[in-house]
């Protein structure tokens, strides 16, 4: 997968925003007592804070597009490829 092969539609971006909210800052965090990374893990996590802020904005925009016509059904959002 390369960057330029992923064409995202508005719907894809909505589910991608949801996906990023799950994978970026959740999960078990390991502290610096192991040899981690090509850089210090704390520095990387500082960087992830920026990702999360940017992604939230993306999510808001996508959600605004997606839900212009809301209905009472419960949409189950899944990212592309999820069965």
């Amino acid at each position, binding site marked *: 997968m390369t960057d330029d092969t992923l064409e995202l539609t508005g719907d894809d971006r909505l589910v991608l925003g949801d996906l990023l909210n799950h994978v970026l800052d959740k999960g078990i965090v390991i502290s610096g007592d192991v040899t981690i990374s090509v*850089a210090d893990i704390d520095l990387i996590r500082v960087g992830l804070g920026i990702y999360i802020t940017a992604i939230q904005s993306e999510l808001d925009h996508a959600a605004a597009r997606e839900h212009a016509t809301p209905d009472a059904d419960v949409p189950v959002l899944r990212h592309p490829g999820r069965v």
Partner: protein
Amino acid sequence: MRPGAPITRAPLGLDESAVTLEQNSGRSVAALVSRVDASVYTTDVMESHASDVDWVGPRAVAHDAVLSWANESGGVVPFPMFTLFASTESVRAMLREREAALDDLLARVAPCQEWTVRLFRLDDRAAAALGLTSPAIAELAERARAAAPGQRYLIERKADELRGVELRRVSAESAREAFDALAALGERAVRDALPAAPSGARPAGVAVLDASFLVRRDRADSFRAAAGELAAKLEPRGLRVELSGPWPPYHFVRDDA
């Protein structure tokens, strides 16, 4: 994951690399690993892509695809994206040091999936519903209709203020009701902080609940049905329910979850 997981069936990992299972002989936990180019995953490069969804997106999809497969193939304890180790020996050292905690976590989450529920208030609809359900607001609206123009303005301002208070109260009550009802069907539940309300028009509604639930696989159908019932119940109040999943247990592997 557990050692011996059917790794050859796993999807490709980060940057289309094959995923391997790193483990120490005779131990109870193993790590799913993608090998990446160290020159690409430096702090500088990663931060330069900080707001670049097209760079992060495919990597997030790959990360989640592997974890979703793992969660349905025996269970997994998710690490966040970009948890990087300098060598496979570092990975194995981490596994040795954390074996007991990882073993407990894996036993706890393996029978489960994570589901996320968000609740949004659609202000126009919610306000209209309040006019029907709140006697005080209905009465003010009636008085405004009957009043002279100058007085009508003041009454309408008062009604707006009361409506705002009532909207927040109804939202908070509904969020609590939804959370409690769904939490009863799960093993664990957690509420995330709500995002700051976006400026300008908000056709998607104001987020009033963002919660994740750890649900046993054999109760997933019941959970989804309950979410559907909640949606039907809350829709007349101007509230919309959004469900996503199943996810690996991202929210439920920290000490505080």
